[in-house]
C-alpha cells in the first residue's frame, strides 16, 4: 500500500513553491474547506466576545442614559470618522490582496498587503492620539478615573461617567489589540508570500487572515456609531 503525495498545481512566474496537501486530507478541496470551517468557528468566538461587550454596553447605556450621551460627546468624532475610513480602506486592500493571491499574482498580492499594513498602522496612530488626549486629562477607565480641572466640569452632576469610559477603553482596547495582532499576521503573510508559498493552489492562509481582518473591520463598523455618534 502506498500513498501518492498530493500536490496542487504550482503556477509559473514568480518563485512559487509547490504545495503539498497534508497527508490526512484526501484532496486539496477537503483541506481548504476544513481550514476554512475551523476559521469560521474561531470568528464565531470573536462574535461572542464582542457580543457580550455590546450587550453590557447596552445595559449600562439604558441605566445611565444621560451620562452616556454626555460622555459620548467628549470623544473626537472627526478622528473616529477618519479611523472608520482608514479601516474600511484597509478592508478593501485586504480583499484585493486575497484576490491577487487567488490569481497567483505574487507581486500584486504583496503590494496590497503592504497597503493594508500601512492603513492598520495609521489606525493605531490615530488611536494613540485619541487615547493620550484622554489620558492627559486623567480620563482613565473604572476606578482610575480622575479627571483634571479642564474635564471635571463636564462630568458635574453625571452619574458614574467612569463607566462610559470603562466601556470605551475596554471595547476599543480589545479591538485595537486585534488590529495589532492583524498587523503581525499580515506581515507574516508578506514574508511567506515573498518566498512564494501562496498562490491559486494554496491561498488558504491569505484567505483566512483576510477573513480575520474583515471581522475586525466589522466590529469597528458597530463600535464607531455606538461610541462616537449616538451614545
Amino acid at each position, binding site marked *: *500500500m502506498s500513498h501518492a503525495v498530493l500536490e496542487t498545481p504550482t503556477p509559473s512566474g514568480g518563485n512559487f513553491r509547490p504545495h503539498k496537501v497534508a497527508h490526512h486530507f484526501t484532496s486539496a478541496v477537503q483541506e481548504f474547506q476544513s481550514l476554512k470551517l475551523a476559521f469560521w468557528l474561531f470568528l464565531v468566538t470573536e462574535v461572542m466576545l464582542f457580543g457580550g461587550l455590546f450587550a453590557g454596553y447596552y445595559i449600562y447605556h439604558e441605566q445611565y442614559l444621560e451620562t452616556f450621551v454626555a460622555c459620548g460627546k467628549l470623544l473626537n468624532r472627526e478622528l473616529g*470618522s477618519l479611523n472608520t475610513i482608514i479601516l474600511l480602506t484597509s*478592508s478593501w486592500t485586504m480583499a484585493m490582496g486575497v484576490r491577487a493571491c487567488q490569481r497567483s499574482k505574487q507581486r500584486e498580492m504583496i503590494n496590497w498587503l503592504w497597503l493594508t499594513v500601512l492603513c492598520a498602522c495609521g489606525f493605531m496612530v490615530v488611536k494613540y492620539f485619541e487615547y493620550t488626549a484622554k489620558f492627559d486629562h486623567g480620563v482613565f477607565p473604572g*476606578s482610575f478615573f480622575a479627571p483634571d480641572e479642564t474635564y471635571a466640569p463636564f462630568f458635574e452632576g453625571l452619574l*458614574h461617567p467612569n463607566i462610559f469610559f470603562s466601556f470605551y477603553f475596554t471595547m476599543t482596547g480589545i479591538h485595537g489589540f486585534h488590529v495589532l495582532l492583524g498587523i503581525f499576521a499580515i506581515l507574516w503573510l508578506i514574508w511567506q508570500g515573498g518566498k512564494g508559498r501562496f498562490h491559486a493552489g494554496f491561498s488558504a492562509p491569505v484567505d483566512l487572515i483576510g477573513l480575520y481582518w*474583515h471581522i475586525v473591520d466589522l466590529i469597528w463598523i458597530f463600535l464607531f*456609531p455606538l461610541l462616537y455618534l449616538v451614545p
Partner: protein
Amino acid sequence: MADAHAEHGEVQIDESLKTHVCSGGQFFGVYIALLFLTIVTVGVSYFDFGDFNMLIAMAIASCKAALVMAIFMHLRWDTPINNIAFIGSLIFLSLLFLFTVADFSTRSDMEPVHGIPAEVNNAFDWKSK
C-alpha cells in the same frame, strides 16, 4: 515500505481546488458603497431624531456589515456550512440582545437600591473618593 515509496516522490497533482474570485470592480463598488454609508451615518448623527437615533445608526451599520460579510468575506459564494456557522452565531447574538432589550426597555424608572452598604453602592463613583 510505504514511507520509502512516498519519499521517492510519487506525486499526484490535484487540480480540483477552484475558488470563486471576485472582480476588482466588484470590490471597488463595495468599498465606495461603504464609504458612502459612513458619510451618511456621520451626517445623520448631526440631526436629532430622538429615540430613533440609535435605530438609524444601527440600521446603517447593519447594511455595511452585510456588504462586508457577503462580498469582502465571500460568504455569498461560500459553502452552506460556513454560512450556517457564521450566520448561526449572529442568530444567537440576536437572542442575547432580544432578551436584554426586552428586559431593559420595559423597566420603569429604577429606584436606588436600598439595603446595600454605601461603600458597595459607591464603589464606582469617582466623586466619593
